[in-house]
């Protein structure tokens, strides 16, 4: 194959992908950054105005609240959520009876549409016909009124969190795949040396999980920076600002206020937070790897 031919083929093979990429990613990203500096609404074309949108959002207490909630969810998800997934993988690794069924069952909440999860929990926790009342009765808890878990700002944040935090089947299968790659001989040698199963996990399995742990934490964090579906289906960010996060704030700015400049300023902040988190997590897990 001659060089000129090769060049043509390289061009022909990459260009369709690149055109689509430019249309859906490149053009919008440039637009987001530019129009975040513009006075731009549904009724007026973008007009440059400097950083006014950023001043507006950073002086809005709702926005600060949405950042706080987003980051709190990132922290919870990268610790508790990934941790539950890892714990389940450690249990399933030994292939106890029914482990395959357990793995499949645990994956199901991660496979169904998140919007459906939102609807299901809305129904499940409905104060009128949901399970809250029978559960409280069962445990003999006194109540004047059945609490509305999604509708009360005291409970809403934790109720929404509960709809995803324990559903870590995706992480479990990633950990299981990585654990399967560890050679059996190491464990046999450890057992001969008198290591208990717990010690084998603590000193052999867990240290080998660092890399993949970094992957899981990164994915969990990115997912939380763009978590939208379940919140939208259950609380829409309320009551008040108790479950407001960046994507919901952005969505409201774009669709309810029709303030596109503001929405895109939020988008810029969201992108920066996302990138910062990815770099931080990468650094965190790389450092540990060198130390080990």
């Amino acid at each position, binding site marked *: 194959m001659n060089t000129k031919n090769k060049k043509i083929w390289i061009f022909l093979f990459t260009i369709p992908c690149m055109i689509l990429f430019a249309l859906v990613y490149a053009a919008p990203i440039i637009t987001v950054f530019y129009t975040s500096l513009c006075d731009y609404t549904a009724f007026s074309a973008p007009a440059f105005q400097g950083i006014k949108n950023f001043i507006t959002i950073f002086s809005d207490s709702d926005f600060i609240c949405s950042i706080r909630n987003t980051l709190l969810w990132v922290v919870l998800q990268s610790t508790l959520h990934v941790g539950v997934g890892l714990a389940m993988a450690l249990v399933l690794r030994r292939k106890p009876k029914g482990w395959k069924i357990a793995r499949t069952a645990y994956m199901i909440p991660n496979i169904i549409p998140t919007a459906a999860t939102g609807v299901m929990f809305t129904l499940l926790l409905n104060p009128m016909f949901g399970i809250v009342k*029978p559960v409280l009765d069962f445990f003999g808890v006194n109540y004047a009124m059945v609490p509305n878990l999604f509708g009360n700002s005291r409970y809403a944040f934790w109720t929404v969190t509960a709809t995803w935090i324990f559903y870590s089947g995706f992480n479990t299968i990633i950990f299981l795949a990585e654990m399967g790659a560890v050679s059996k001989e190491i464990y046999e040698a450890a057992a001969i040396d008198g290591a208990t199963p717990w010690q084998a996990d603590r000193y052999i399995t867990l240290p080998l999980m660092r890399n993949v742990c970094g992957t899981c934490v990164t994915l969990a964090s990115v997912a939380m920076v763009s978590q939208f579906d379940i919140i939208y289906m259950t609380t829409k960010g309320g009551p008040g600002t108790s479950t407001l996060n960046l994507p919901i704030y952005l969505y409201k700015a774009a669709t309810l206020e029709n303030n596109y400049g503001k929405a895109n300023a939020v988008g810029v902040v969201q992108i920066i937070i996302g990138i910062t988190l990815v770099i931080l997590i990468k650094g965190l897990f790389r450092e540990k790897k060198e130390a080990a």
Partner: protein
Amino acid sequence: MRKTSKVKNGIASFFKYFFMILLIFISLAPIVWAFISSFKSYAEINSSALSWPSRFSLDNYKAALQYAPILKYFMNSVIIVCVSVLVTVALVAMCAYVISRFQFKLKTLIVLLISASLMLPAQAISQPLFAIFQKLGIFDTKLGLIIVYSAMGIPMSFFVMVSYYKTISTALEESAYIDGATFIQTFLHIILPLAKPGLVTIAMIQFINIWNEFYFALMLTSGDRARTVPIALNYYMGTFANNYSALFAAVVMTVLPTIILFILLQRQVMESLTAGAVKG
């Protein structure tokens, strides 16, 4: 000594099973509960959350199908998902092949751009997309969603495919070229058949992600023409505010096909998702 370790083992395995069963329970209970409740009458749902339906009635399903064109949404979803899976797989199969095999000027730039978009929070670019699509006249069309979804599948599929191509030895291609095969012949008849498992992997990742996608479907549609299944649920939430017995049926109808497909294809789905996470 031996006795205490036996007791310890007993406790450990008790906790192990307890943990396992607990996670299975919280995973399945809401779905099973919704499934059982979907057969109850409105009055039964209101009177007790944990009772068995007095008779298995399909009234809720009839009502759900009557109030909203859920079959239309299903067809929309099937068309949009299938076309965008095909487009992503075709484009990525080509692009990733060239990237994995050849050195050229813009290669680093392409890889850099794609990896940067891998971690991009998608909502951030939704308003510009909305504006662009309105200008192009593809807002609220299946074509619009197909374009967005095909593109959104590129980053992860790209890295899965690049690393898959790297596992295929170049010896076969070289001998094909020596035998006088052209580039396109080599790609179609030698590389693609070998790359099939990789292509199946990205198709599955793409299928699951797009079938469940909610945000862009919400942002980029406004009528029944292009609404997908997840958006149908949003619509139901509004419509059935007072007739939630039909809502149970609607949620079961959207969840059940996914679960059945997953159980049938679970080994491949799990392998695909793992590959996507680790290589992507």
